[in-house]
């Protein structure tokens, strides 16, 4: 368990992942589920980036020609997370437009009420 305190960044990251997961499960409003999804993604990216961080080393930008690997942190997770952040923005934008389309039609964002509405609308007809 002492390892948990040494890798505390990863522990925090996965706690964020679980908080996002719980928000996704327990909130009915679609916007809140989206916030939960974003927190989940941020948690995974924090987990990945903190894997690359090495204490006492500097950002991976070459300074005055010093190419020794001991000076810089691991650049690979940083490049992966840069790709990931843009993925989560585009997914958020698509889900927001979906929820707007839903809201225009059913005037609520609570998926259970929407199902009831979809069925009740059919009974009216």
């Amino acid at each position: 368990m002492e390892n948990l305190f040494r890798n505390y960044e990863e522990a925090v990251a996965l706690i964020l992942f679980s908080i996002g997961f719980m928000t996704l499960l327990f909130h009915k409003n679609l916007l809140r589920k989206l916030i939960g999804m974003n927190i989940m993604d941020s948690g995974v990216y924090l987990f990945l980036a903190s894997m690359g961080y090495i204490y006492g080393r500097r950002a991976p930008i070459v300074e005055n020609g010093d190419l020794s690997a001991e000076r810089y942190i691991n650049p690979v997770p940083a490049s992966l997370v840069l790709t990931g952040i843009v993925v989560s923005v585009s997914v958020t934008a698509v889900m927001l437009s979906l929820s707007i389309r839903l809201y225009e039609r059913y005037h609520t964002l609570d998926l259970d009420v929407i199902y009831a509405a979809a069925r009740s609308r059919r009974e009216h007809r």
Partner: protein
Amino acid sequence: MADFTEAIKAALLVLLIISATAAATAKKTLPAIIIFSSFSLIMAVVWALLESPDLAITEAAVGAGVSGVLFFMAYRRMGMMSGGKGDDENGKEDDDEHKG
């Protein structure tokens, strides 16, 4: 000097968890969106402390900036559509009252 930044990083990580739970457990949607914007701002500072400046700039511009604005625009549109009552009560509308 070095362990000072470590201490700040630890404090910010704790602040991250607090803001995440606050965004999760906020009663209304508007405060949740605002707290979420602050969450991604803190995340941008944490990226800077984790020695990856590219991520800090991207997260600040994209997380707090664009996602926050998009969430707020979507929230405002729904507020407009339901006649100014764009808050959480929408979710609790019962079946017959809502304008199907």
